[in-house]
């Protein structure tokens, strides 16, 4: 597949057009997916969308703090993870809620994290999902190391990691991809090119025509994928995973997409982009496209859509209530996870602080 989509020629893998019709050129790449798998994938995208929409409204109501959303990027977040196995590793940035949920994360955890609780990074069953990463592109090097470990131990898992268009400007992007290529680590580098890094457009980051073409110099395949096309995302990720499992090393996938929402709830996009531009991407919404495809195949209808959105909305509201009823972070938790066993000085600081709390209470 990678030979057919030369990033230097700006070729892009697409299977569905914007109305959900299978493109002639896309037919060849159509991933094999059962009806159940199709429904499951679409449902996961809708669930992520609803969770994001709810989270933004909770933030507006002052119930949680600032947070980013993955609205508009659900196909890339969900399609990648659905194309992989549970024993593969996911190394996230902070804009892949759909993928996190698909990997075993929960809405409650998401809301807990953005309510300011570290417990939000502890998912049921401890899936192979690292906590979200705030320093841009730093996580890419971790995926390289996970890939290295897989090779060392002779496993056939892969690691997948996510970062943005802006993230390609960081040194860690270079260092992580370079390492993975040198040691042929089974890593799928997913660059979500959502056209913006906060206020800066894609063109402000690099003189390269495309981001995928950076792979060429590292010595790995690179491909541009229509990141709003769920089927293309699945097909590309499967190919990349096969490449990795076969011992051929890493792949860079540039998911061409659009950040439909603000950077975070504290951002104001009207400063740096036009309403017309935002509107021009509405029709390209990955959910609209996939839904049309599903409806056409009689796998989906408006009733199902409405029921799912309602069910998910209620699930989010319930999760939000649970988070609001959580106990505040216990004093001990601030100290006890810093080291395997608490150094004496830290123990002293904790005891002194507890003595202070008692003093305050008695005043």
């Amino acid at each position, binding site marked *: 597949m990678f030979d057919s989509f030369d990033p230097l020629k700006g070729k892009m893998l697409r299977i569905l057009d914007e109305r959900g019709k299978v493109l002639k050129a896309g037919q060849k790449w159509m991933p094999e997916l059962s009806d159940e798998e199709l429904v499951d994938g679409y449902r996961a995208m809708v669930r992520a969308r609803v969770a994001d929409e709810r989270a933004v409204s909770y933030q507006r109501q002052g119930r949680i703090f600032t947070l980013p959303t993955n609205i508009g990027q659900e196909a890339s977040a969900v399609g990648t993870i659905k194309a992989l196995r549970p024993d593969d590793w996911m190394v996230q940035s902070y804009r892949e809620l759909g993928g996190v949920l698909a990997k075993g994360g929960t809405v409650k955890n998401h809301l807990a994290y953005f309510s300011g*609780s570290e417990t939000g990074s502890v998912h049921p069953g401890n899936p192979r999902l690292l906590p979200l990463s*705030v*320093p841009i592109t730093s996580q890419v090097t971790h995926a390289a190391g996970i890939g290295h470990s897989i090779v060392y131990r002779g496993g056939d898992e892969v690691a997948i990691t996510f970062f943005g268009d802006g993230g390609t400007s*960081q040194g860690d992007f270079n260092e992580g991809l370079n390492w993975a290529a040198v040691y042929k680590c089974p890593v799928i580098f997913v660059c979500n090119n959502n056209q913006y890094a906060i206020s800066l457009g894609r063109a402000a980051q690099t003189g390269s025509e495309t981001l995928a073409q950076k792979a060429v110099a590292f010595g790995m395949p690179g491909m541009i994928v229509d990141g709003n096309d769920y089927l293309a995302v699945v097909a590309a990720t499967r190919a990349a995973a096969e490449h990795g499992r076969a011992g051929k090393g890493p792949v860079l996938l540039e998911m061409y997409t659009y950040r439909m929402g603000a950077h975070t709830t504290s951002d104001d996009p009207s400063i740096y982009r036009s309403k017309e531009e935002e509107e021009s991407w509405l029709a390209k919404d990955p959910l609209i496209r996939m839904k049309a495809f599903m409806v056409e195949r009689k796998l989906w209808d408006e009733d199902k859509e409405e029921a799912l959105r309602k069910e998910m909305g209620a699930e989010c509201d319930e999760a939000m209530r649970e988070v609001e009823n959580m106990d*505040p*972070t216990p004093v001990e938790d601030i100290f006890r996870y810093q080291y395997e066993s608490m150094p004496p000085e830290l123990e002293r600081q904790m005891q002194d602080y507890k003595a202070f709390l008692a003093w305050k209470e008695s005043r």
Partner: protein
Amino acid sequence: MPAMNLVQAINNALEIKLREDEDILLFGEDAGLEGGVFRVTQGLQAKFGERRVFDTPLSESVLLGAGLGMAVTGLRPIVEIQFSGFMYPAMNQLVTHVSRMRNRSRGVFTVPMTIRMPYGGGIRALELHSESMEAIYGHVPGLKVVIPSCPYDAKGLLISAIESNDPVLFMEPKKIYRSFRQDVPEEAYRVPLGKASVTRQGEDLTLVAYGAMMRVASKAVEQAAKEGTDVELIDLRTIYPLDRETVLDSVRKTGRLMVLHEGPKTFGVAAELISIVNEEAMEYLEAPPQRVCGFDTIMPLPMGEDHYMPTPERVLYAIEKMKAFAE
């Protein structure tokens, strides 16, 4: 005299210097068109154009590295790091080049660069958006480290920083970016680097703080006065070079030293100040010095943040301990 908040005072200082000196360039991630995520540089690109005030690729290392390159040719870059938590990709440049160039080249090449970055907690922010790691920078030979606590000082200190021929790290307490206004002269003026200020005279105890902790300190000091302790309050203003004399003079008078900061306790600014007092004024001490600081842990997420951030009550608690020692 116009009343300005911290953001306006900093913006005003930047504008004055940009207008005065064409060798000054200002740049950073989102610092141009948008005016930075806190809008501190708002309007500057419109006033001075994209050649003078510009957005950069998302990469802190090159912000400082390219800044150094500009500086050795005679420009005077002002670099914005979006949050202090994102300085780390640039630590290599800061420690291995920016701070060393003058000494290594025996003064031939210098780096008159000002690096601004918001720091500090108490704003319910995301991970790595709330730390106070000034002690790390105080430890790097060749850097000056400045932390203002009010709009008036911020403007005067920033102008001094920009005029310094050594690299200056200017850390902005974002918690108080917009929390109060002060009368700030419209014209340029300077507050010297390396000079602390005594903001309240007192007889019983010396309390040293800086940045957003000055507000916490002031509240504690007011309450302490009501409870019968007369505290002398010092705003350090510069972490390096430290104003030893102001602190020593005060401790010689009061016989007691307490230091308040948000950053972790171990190897912090408080430890350094206490060492200085031990070296030069030990015989004046009537009680062991006290530190009221953040813990040796990562900054907790917002649900645990209030435990971490020093409060006026924690200062009062430490005062009581100190007084108990004397009795």
